[in-house]
C-alpha cells in the first residue's frame, strides 16, 4: 500500500510549495510592525514568524489570503499584486 498521498513531511506536502498559488503578496513594514504577534496567531497556514525588526513571512507557503493584513492593529501589512 502506497501511503505517500496520505503521509508527508511535516513542512512540504505532496502539493509542493503552495506559495505559487498566491495572487497578492503581503508586505510587512518593519517601521510600523510592533511584533505583537497577532498575525502569527491568525495566519491559517502558520507561515509567519517573529523576525529581527518585524514579523517575517515564509513566501514558499503563504497563499496570500490577507488575514494577516486584516488582523494587524498597526496597519503594517500591505497586499500587493504578484
Amino acid at each position: 500500500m502506497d501511503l505517500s498521498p496520505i503521509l508527508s513531511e511535516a513542512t512540504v506536502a505532496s502539493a509542493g510549495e503552495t506559495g505559487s498559488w498566491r495572487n497578492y503578496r503581503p508586505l510587512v513594514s518593519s517601521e510600523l510592525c510592533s511584533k505583537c504577534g497577532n498575525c502569527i496567531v491568525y495566519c491559517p497556514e502558520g507561515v509567519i514568524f517573529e523576525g529581527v525588526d518585524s514579523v517575517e513571512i515564509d513566501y514558499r507557503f503563504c497563499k496570500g489570503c490577507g488575514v494577516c493584513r486584516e488582523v494587524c492593529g498597526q496597519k503594517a501589512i500591505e497586499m500587493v499584486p504578484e
Partner: protein
Amino acid sequence: MRAEGNRNGSGVKRLLTSNEAIAEAVKIAKPDVIAAYPITPQSPIVEKLAEMVESGELDASFVRVESEHSAMAVIHGAATAGARVFTATSSHGLAYMFEMCWWIAGSRLPAVMAVATRSIGAPWNIHGDHTDIMSLRDAGWIIGMAESAQEAFDMTLQAFAVSEVVNIPFAVGIDAFTMSHTAEIVEIRNAKLPERRQAYRILPGMEVAVNAVTMGEARMKARYDLAIDLEKSAEVIERTDGEFGSYGGLVEKYRLEDAEYAVVMAGGWCGDAKDAIDMLRDEGVRIGMLRLRFIRPFPEKAVKELPSEVLVVDRANTGIKGILGMETAACGVEVKNVVAGIGGLDVGIDDFYRLFGKFVDGKLEKVEWLI
C-alpha cells in the same frame, strides 16, 4: 482469526437483540476507544457498551461526544494513533458524520461501525429501510448486511479482523427494530482476534503531516488504491468468514443450485423472503435467493452466475430504481427491480409470496414500487 469454543467447543446461548449481540461482539474484540452519540434505533448498542465500561467488564475509553460528526472524528484520531475503535449510528446520525466517514476511509484507517439501518427524513420516520447505509457506498467503506442477531454478532467480530488487515473501515448493517430490537437466540463464542495492526501509526513526537493538501495526481492515486483494495478485500472477507462464521463469504446462496428464478436481496427481511421461497418450492417452482451479505465490495462474481430470471428487491432507491437493482444490472445482468419496505412499511411472508409469484408468472414491470 480463531474461534475459541467454551468448554464443549461451542458458545453460550443467550436471548439477545441484534443490538445486544453487537455489543457482546465488541466486548470480545476489546476496543481501546468507543465514541458515539445516541440515536434510535442504535442507542442500545452503545448504552450496553457504556454499562460494560462503567462496570469494568470492558477496559476501553468511552468518549461521550456532542454529535456523530465528533464521534467519527474521535475514532478517526484514536485509530490514527493505533487504537482499536468502534462506533455505532443510524439514519440522521450517519448523515451528520458523513464527511468524517470519507476522511477515515481515505486515511486508510481500520475501524468498525454498526449501523442500525433506518430511514432518513423527511418526512420524519424512525423505522427501518436501507437508505442510510446505502449512502456510504461511495465513501470507500466495506459494507456488510447481517440477516440475524447471530450473524450480527459474528460479522462484528469478522469486521475487526478484516478491517485491520485491509486498512479499510467496516460498517455492519442491521435492520432497524426487526433486528435491532428483536431478540433471537445467539451463540456467544469467544474469538481470538489478532493483535491490532494497521498501515501506519502517528504517535507524539513524530514529525509528519497527515492528509496534507494534495493535487490531483496524489488524490487520484489514493482513490484508485482504495478502490482496488476494496475489491481485493473480498478475499480477506471470505477467508475470515471461513475461520469464524462460515456464512458463504460475500453472499449466501439459498436454494439456488437448480433455480430457474433468483431473488437478490440484503438484510433482515431475507428471512421472511426465504419462507416465501420455501412455499413456492413446495409448489414445484425452482426459485432461490442470492443474499448479498456485502454491498461493498459488491459480489459481482456471484451475481454474474445467476440464472437468467432475476428479481432484485430493494429497501432503498436512487431515482425511480432500487440501488441494488441498479448495482446488479451494472454487472451485465437483466433484472426486474422492486422497491419495497421504505420507512418500515411491513413486507411479510405473504407479501413476498405474492410478489415472487408475480415475478415467476412474468407479470412484473421492469421497475415497480410495492406501495
